[in-house]
């Protein structure tokens, strides 16, 4: 069991991150190597400055708001929550004063960010079963949603256990020791593997590993391409 924990918490994390970084860079390079299209592909009327409208299209999704306001709500909640969780995980490596503009314990939102993310993912998953979306969906769509759902349930449980139930066995210090050691390539998992709660962390990291491993080869690349494509539409 210790060996399995070690494999998931150390070599698999390194491997997944390496594939993620190399994969994303490779995909971007592969696109950049292709010839440029010579015809304008924007739609009219053009609004200036185009880059500002492209950013608004990307982050505020006004077209989605107009067409499907409920979906827009969950998309905004989902992406904002992802952003907050990325900050939370960075704080698990090191605390930065800039993130403490709003004073908080590690992970803003006292566990509610994970909960809103969970609810958003349930919405995204269940809407795939409605007729229009079901006909368009491919296994990849369910696979990614289920991977994220499992990662978030386990990650949230870790956070809730710590903050809601006064569960003190695996502390922020313990996570920081583990993550810092990973960053310095001197892996030390002792602080996160002695607790009865370890299996939650191991599963959380395992599903997160799978997700980032798969990222460059999936539709998740929309995270990279949405801004340039919206800029092309805006002209």
């Amino acid at each position, binding site marked *: 069991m210790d060996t399995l924990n070690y494999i998931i918490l150390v070599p698999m994390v390194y491997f997944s991150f390496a594939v993620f970084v190399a994969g994303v860079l490779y*995909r971007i390079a*592969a*696109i*950049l190597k*292709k*010839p*440029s*299209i*010579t*015809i*304008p*592909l924007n*739609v*009219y*009327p*053009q609004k200036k400055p185009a880059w500002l409208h492209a950013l608004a*299209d990307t982050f505020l*999704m006004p*077209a*989605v708001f*107009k*067409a*499907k306001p409920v*979906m827009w709500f969950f*998309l905004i909640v989902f992406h904002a929550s992802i952003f907050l969780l990325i900050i939370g995980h960075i704080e698990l490596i090191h605390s930065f004063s800039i993130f403490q503009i709003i004073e908080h314990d590690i992970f803003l939102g006292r566990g509610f960010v994970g909960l809103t993310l969970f609810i958003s993912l349930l919405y995204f998953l269940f809407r795939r079963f409605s*007729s*229009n*979306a079901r*006909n*368009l*969906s*491919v*296994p*990849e*769509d369910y*696979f990614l949603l289920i991977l994220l759902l499992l990662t978030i349930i386990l990650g949230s449980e870790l956070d809730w256990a710590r903050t809601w139930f006064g569960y003190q066995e695996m502390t922020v210090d313990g996570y920081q020791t583990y993550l810092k050691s990973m960053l310095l390539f001197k892996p030390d998992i002792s602080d996160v593997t002695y607790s009865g709660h370890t299996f939650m962390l191991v599963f959380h990291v395992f599903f997160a590993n799978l997700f980032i491993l798969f990222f460059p*080869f*999936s*539709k998740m*690349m*929309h995270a990279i*391409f*949405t801004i*340039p*494509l*919206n800029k*092309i*539409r*805006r002209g």
Partner: protein
Amino acid sequence: MEENLREKLLKAFEGKLTKTIAMYLETCSRCGICTTSCHVFNSMPRPEYSPAARAEVVRRLYKKYFKLQGKFWPSLGEAKPLDDTALDDLDRAAYSCTGCRRCMTFCPFGIDTQQIMSIAKLILVAAHAEPEILSMLADVSISKGESIDLIKQGFIDGLERLEGEVVEKWKIDAEKIPIPTEVQEADILYVALAGAHSIIPSAAIFNAACENWTLSFFEAVNFGAFVGDPGKTRLIMDRIINEANRLNVKEVCICECGTAFRVLKQMSGKQSFKISSITEVHARYIREKRIKLEKNRFKGIITYHDPCQIARNAGIMDEPRYIIKHLTDNFTDLSKKPEENWCCGGGGGLVAMGQDSHDFRMKSSKVKADQVKATHASILVTACENCHSQLSDLNKYYKMGVEVKFLSSMVADSLI
């Protein structure tokens, strides 16, 4: 399908993979927001008529042959091989899309389904599985360009027969030629369609504005673009560019044909002459007071259909409304925003396919007919030949009770 044919088709596919198109193929999350933006889906709600579903037909081939995921785990993205079944799917996808790009305005990623369908059309061309009529029409246009000297005299004789009707609309000095051709250094080279309706009203308006103009020997429509053959599109476009350069004109004015205007304006690259649509030119004449129009000559409510290739895809939205303002006090718009107007349902070569596409064109454009009926207009005006033909067919099929007119003919009939 034989292996060497598949390789040939995949080579054609690869040739279309520019940076932008590759990003379009990589990015779709199949959220389905685009589904209800398509007039075909709204009129005939079938899953295959969602823009994302059409694009997925091409995307599944892309995954199979150009993505690691499709090579190692094809079932995950439902990657599909390029075979005879795939060709049928490509045909259904490409020729149920009019290339109106309305879905693009709703897509959170800005994916251009028309561009993805251009891959489908090119594969069909490479497999000789495209609609034969479109290729034949493109070939006729090209051969006309190659043998222009043989047909010149016949064309000029035909124009002489139209001169009387031009003068009837606007009288000019007897020594002047009502429909001039081959005018060196003309200010405008007017490229019309093959038909008197495209020449007579415009000629009268040019003459009323005392324009130094000349008529092109070629028709504007680009069947190469309809069939999705870039080589033929270029050859058809080049006939006009060469003529404009030979005559050393200042401006090329494209008649009421959306595809012809967009192709020349956006694909011809940098040229020594300006490229305008006839609607822009007419608006300019009114603004500069070179022509005057009798207001309210046409009675009843007038509404305007924005041709997708001229409005949403080329930006000509204010000019037609400016002209109409000089024609009537009784105008009502079809949609709140011109860019969100429903397509007429005849683009992408569907109208040119004639009776072969008639049933689909009518059924897939119910939403358009409903939109027109809701205005209670008596005149439906547009600035595109394709749209005019389709709207006229819809008028009969759905008993819309409107008179479908060209904007240029209304301008010509209102000249004072």
